């Protein structure tokens, strides 16, 4: 696999030098630190879902970014790489958005009322943001002493 480069020998040498002396061990230390942060963050906030989700996504994106930028050499790569990556990311987002109405927000109907009903124990705190029932659906069943929702 011979390299077909249109740059001069000096340019190539400069690129080798820049890439091969990137701060890999520092990035390794940073990744170790962020892994530890992620682990303890998940343990501390395991009950608070939104806080957990937001924080963990931040740490995961930072770690993924470090791997991509330094190890995969995106720092040294031209802009052409993003022409490949961005459409893939767009398609990924569209996939989730397209599936959400049918899979994530299934309307509650008479057939699946048992499944979709939210069982609430008396006296428990209600979530501030409640999803509204779908048009034409049964209202959620409020059981007098049903199991508590977690």
């Amino acid at each position, binding site marked *: 696999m011979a390299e077909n480069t249109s740059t001069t020998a000096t340019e190539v040498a400069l690129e080798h030098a820049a890439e091969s002396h990137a701060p890999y061990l520092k990035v390794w230390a940073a990744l170790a630190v962020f892994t530890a942060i992620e682990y303890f963050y998940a343990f501390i906030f395991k009950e608070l879902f939104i806080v957990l989700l937001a924080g963990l996504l931040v740490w995961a994106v930072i770690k993924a970014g470090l791997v991509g930028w330094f190890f*995969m050499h995106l720092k040294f790569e031209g802009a052409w790489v993003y022409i490949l990556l961005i459409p893939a990311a767009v398609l*990924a987002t569209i996939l989730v958005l397209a599936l959400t109405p049918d899979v994530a927000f299934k309307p509650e109907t008479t057939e699946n009322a048992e499944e979709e009903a939210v069982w609430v124990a008396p006296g428990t705190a209600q979530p501030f943001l409640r999803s509204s029932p779908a048009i034409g659906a049964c209202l959620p069943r409020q059981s007098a002493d049903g*199991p508590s929702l977690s």
Partner: protein
Amino acid sequence: MATATISPSEASHGHGHGDTHRAHAPVTPGKVAMWLFLATEVMFFTGLIGSYIVLRAGSPHTAYSNLYKPAMPLAGLENTAGILIKSPGASASHVEAILHSSAGLAEEAAKKAVEEAPHGLVSGLSKSKAESVAAQLTAAGAVVEVEPLKAHKWPAPYDELTNPLAINLTAGNTFVLICSSVTMVLALAAIQQGKKARCSFFLLATVLIGSTFLGVQVYEYYQLSVGHHYPPGISATGHFRPSVSLFASCFFTMTGFHGAHVTGGVILLAIIFIQSFFFGAYSQNHYAPVELAGLYWHFVDLVWIILFTIVYLI
């Protein structure tokens, strides 16, 4: 190797950068091909992760409970409770006898519940009965807790009655895979500086550390599907296998496909190591296979970082 006759000033104009810090790597067909493949891999894994997200969001509110098997209809069971046996105390047989007589368990079931402490679970009792049996067991020296029925949309991390995943072990394994990524990039850096032996060394290190990651994954799969026995909130059969719940299905599909990718990467890197060490195939002027295999390996690590976060921690 073809060299175009471009003068240095033209070349630097073409790249548009004067400083050496932001030097552009040469754009070879191999590199374009590998990045294109990685873009398709992005679509593959986001397909899996995206499906996981919508399936989880659409999971019924009573799909998982602490007392009954996944997807069991809980209508009519709202007032039931269970007894969690944390320790049988001094006399296990006495505890079994109480379970048999007061809770109405068959002898086999009573024995099993006691054996599985600290996660032994007796379910299907009414609240008052659960409390009276628990009082009897405590009097007999066992450490028990009454568990009221709690329904969840999805198994929560660290919840031992619904979620069997070993987060501590896998967090360590995540760090192991990150280390293999570091050795991989150090191998590339070495051959970019012409250091063949150092490159071979780091390639071998990457293969070994990657294999360690796979070994831990296999161990975890074994413990989940064969080795451990889990309470009913995790699996009707007691073993965590792809068919026991949607959560199990998703878990094994996502980590299984990732494991298959890691396996492919380890084989590829082993071949490249052999070429490097035994045949001295790479040099400062020819190291593209090392770089391209490295790109694949880093991608596999990146996917795991995201997978671990989404499947294990959230």
